[in-house]
């Protein structure tokens, strides 16, 4: 039997090695041909041989599939109001530009004091959920009457994200963290992919930073009631779904109050696409075509 060579060059990829690439093998092959000696001329371009990829060669190269996002969620929004904090996302996870998964809950309840929403890679978020689950379990086992509050979760996530960016292997996510801090005050913060973090009265991760933040800035006041806050949130979601192609008209609003976390049922906002400018977008823009 002809020993089958394996390719050590990962860029060749799986497939067929043409004649001429591996002289050693070619020589062996020629020597064993049943019909006797075959000239190089005959072999060239006609006979190739399949090969397998050497596992060892693969190990040497770092896996790259974790380093670009594949299935992603877009904006996540957070808004404080007088009695708590709201979180809002749509329920879409895109595969590139494909609306791939349309009923994904992009909010996670961490514990009674904290919930988070994410943007970016779905599977990285699943990993982060595992980490948080571990924390919660630890907390439960400790059984000392204390619970990690939202600010601690926020700090922890910051460390996780920053450490991973420092390893040049980032988690492709941004988070909005909502809940209560140790003093029992409402907390709303965001953690970015490279560890950038800040807490504010309202935050937006992802594209919503351009679209929802201005709306929040205009309408936010510290004594918002829950109804008012939900209205503001809905108008922000409306603005997002009209302008962000990765956004879908199916949203979830979660709230964190003193009573705990409740994640609302999905809903849609009424949209209006009949504007004249949508039919004829460049009509009034000089130079447009």
């Amino acid at each position, binding site marked *: 039997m002809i020993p089958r060579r394996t390719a050590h060059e990962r*860029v060749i990829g799986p497939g067929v090695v043409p004649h001429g690439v591996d002289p050693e093998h070619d020589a062996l092959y020629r020597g064993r041909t049943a019909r006797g000696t075959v000239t190089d001329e005959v072999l060239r371009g006609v006979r190739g041989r399949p090969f397998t990829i050497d596992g060892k060669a693969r190990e040497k*190269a*770092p896996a*790259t599939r974790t*380093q*670009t996002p594949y299935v992603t969620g877009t904006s996540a929004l957070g808004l404080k109001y007088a009695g708590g904090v709201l979180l809002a996302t749509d329920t879409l996870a895109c595969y590139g530009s494909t609306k791939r998964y349309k009923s994904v809950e992009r909010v996670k309840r961490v514990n009674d004091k904290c919930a988070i929403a994410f943007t970016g890679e779905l599977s990285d978020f699943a990993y982060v959920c595992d980490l948080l689950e571990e924390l919660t379990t630890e907390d439960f086992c400790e059984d000392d009457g204390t619970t990690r509050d939202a600010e601690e979760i926020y700090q922890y996530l*910051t460390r996780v994200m*920053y450490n991973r*960016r*420092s390893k*040049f292997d*980032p988690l492709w996510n941004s988070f909005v963290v909502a809940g209560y801090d140790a003093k029992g005050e409402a907390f709303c913060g965001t953690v*970015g*992919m*490279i*560890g*950038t*973090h*800040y*807490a*504010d009265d309202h*935050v937006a991760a992802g594209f919503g*930073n*351009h679209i929802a*933040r201005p709306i929040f800035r205009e309408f936010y006041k510290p004594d918002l009631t829950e109804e008012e806050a939900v209205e503001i949130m809905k108008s922000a979601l409306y603005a997002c779904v009209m302008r962000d192609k990765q956004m879908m008209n199916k949203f979830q609003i979660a709230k964190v109050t003193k009573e705990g976390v409740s994640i609302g049922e999905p809903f849609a906002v009424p949209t209006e696409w009949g504007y004249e400018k949508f039919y004829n977008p460049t009509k009034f823009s000089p130079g447009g075509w």
Partner: protein
Amino acid sequence: MFDAREDALAGARQHANWSPYDNNGGTVLAVAGESYVICAGDTRMSSGYNILTRKFEKIDKMSGKTLMASAGFAADAVTLKKTLKARCKQYEFQNKREIGCVAFAQMLSNTLYYRRFFPYYAFNIVAGLDAEGKGAVFTYDAVGSYERTNYSCQGSGQALIMPVLDNQLKTVSPLVLPAASSATPLSEQEAIDLIKDCFATAAERDIYTGDSVELWIMNAEGVRKEEMALRAD
């Protein structure tokens, strides 16, 4: 345009669209007097043309007599401060006293240089009172070069503010004999007013400086804070 094949040949391109750094802007400043030191910073945090938040504090108390202010990449700055705070605590446990500002200044330099080849992208100023109670300002680059001065400014508004400080505060050269005090001749209140002017001016022209300026004033009595609103646009 990037060529997938070329990229694959060069060893797969790993990070399609991300950088481990960002510049979140901001300006920090410190002025040392004979018996006081003032550390100031604006509270804007930006990323590109976005304002992320208007209330991001850049100044932190690191030990009893030491303040530290950093501009640049916020995540690095925060991590750096956290690391240093942890080491200050360890210093305290080992030496049964708080770290002084001169020792802290050296420690910051060492910590920055340790990351010479993957630097903390943070521009720092350390302000404190030295063993004699005199104001001290230490100014750094991102990889740990530092110098003790009597005033300094770092961050996005540096180019706008530093000339003003030079004009207003430049004192006798340390080379002149007999040695003269290098501390600024201004009184505490005069220095506060100067700093507020500087920030108001920088906020006019620098889009990364604004919202408000916080001043931490440290003297023998302790630390107090002042705040002044700046342009929010």
